[in-house]
């Protein structure tokens, strides 16, 4: 089970009313390499991986949900009091007529989230390599978001999130090494 913590993982401060930036951030909210996909990918894989790497998948998945909440906070703040006209100018007119001011799990292009974004092969190495790739892709997405954003508060939070991808990638790489140590273990039993 999970217990809600009434705080963000990292203090998010948004400086501008900027619905266009909110739209771009949706890539990491409901996109293929976004935080929802990451959280669900690891949380689903953990049931069938070798015991030694269950902790990593569980803990990183849990952290990804806290990243999702940071993204939601940024998107919420960037659009909170924006007028329909401002939303339309930001390319969120279609979003507005369907969802109003609410958030939705979709990417920057408005494509709704789908579970086909995640993989689960039931093969530990295939899954961990997928996870390493997912972290590097998320890191790259954060880079392009930092490049396109001029909100200092948002960029500060994005830098934090990008760095977390480095650490998660490292832990998944270590998980691969841990599984490599299991070679020929059967013979010793």
């Amino acid at each position, binding site marked *: 089970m999970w217990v809600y913590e*009434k705080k*963000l993982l*990292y*203090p998010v401060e948004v400086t501008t009313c900027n619905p266009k930036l909110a739209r771009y951030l949706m890539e990491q909210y409901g996109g293929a390499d976004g935080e929802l996909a990451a959280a669900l990918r690891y949380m689903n894989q953990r049931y069938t991986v070798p015991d030694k790497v269950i902790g990593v998948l569980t*803990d990183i998945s849990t952290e990804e949900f806290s990243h999702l909440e940071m993204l939601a906070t940024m998107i*919420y703040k960037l659009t909170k009091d924006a007028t329909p006209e401002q939303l339309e100018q930001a390319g969120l007119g279609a979003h507005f007529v369907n969802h109003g001011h609410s958030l939705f799990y979709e990417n920057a292009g408005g494509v709704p989230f789908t579970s086909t974004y995640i993989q689960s092969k039931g093969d530990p190495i295939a899954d961990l390599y997928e996870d390493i790739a997912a972290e590097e892709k998320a890191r790259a997405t954060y880079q392009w978001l930092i490049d396109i954003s001029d909100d200092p508060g948002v960029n500060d939070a994005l830098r934090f999130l990008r760095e977390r991808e480095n650490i998660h990638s490292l*832990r998944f790489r270590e998980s691969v090494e841990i599984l490599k140590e299991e070679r020929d273990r059967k013979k010793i039993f």
Partner: protein
Amino acid sequence: MNANEEEWNLLKKVQQADFVVVELTLYTDTHPNDAEAIHQWREAIKEASQVRRQYEARYGPLSLLSVPSKQAIEVGWHWNSTPWPWQR
């Protein structure tokens, strides 16, 4: 420093202490035999719960597993009280 800023700063202390726990938990997941890290991890959890108690005594629980202080109840604190994390 106004009241809102004071709360923000104390919450940041909680976030800093908790983040150390997050990092060390992930580290010990893949380094179960690093005794020094396990020790630091235990100490980090103690430190985080101490900072958390300071915050919660003044501003109310951050989690449903924290005991609400009498003072918090007296001043009308509820779990459902604003601000929620995304509203701050």
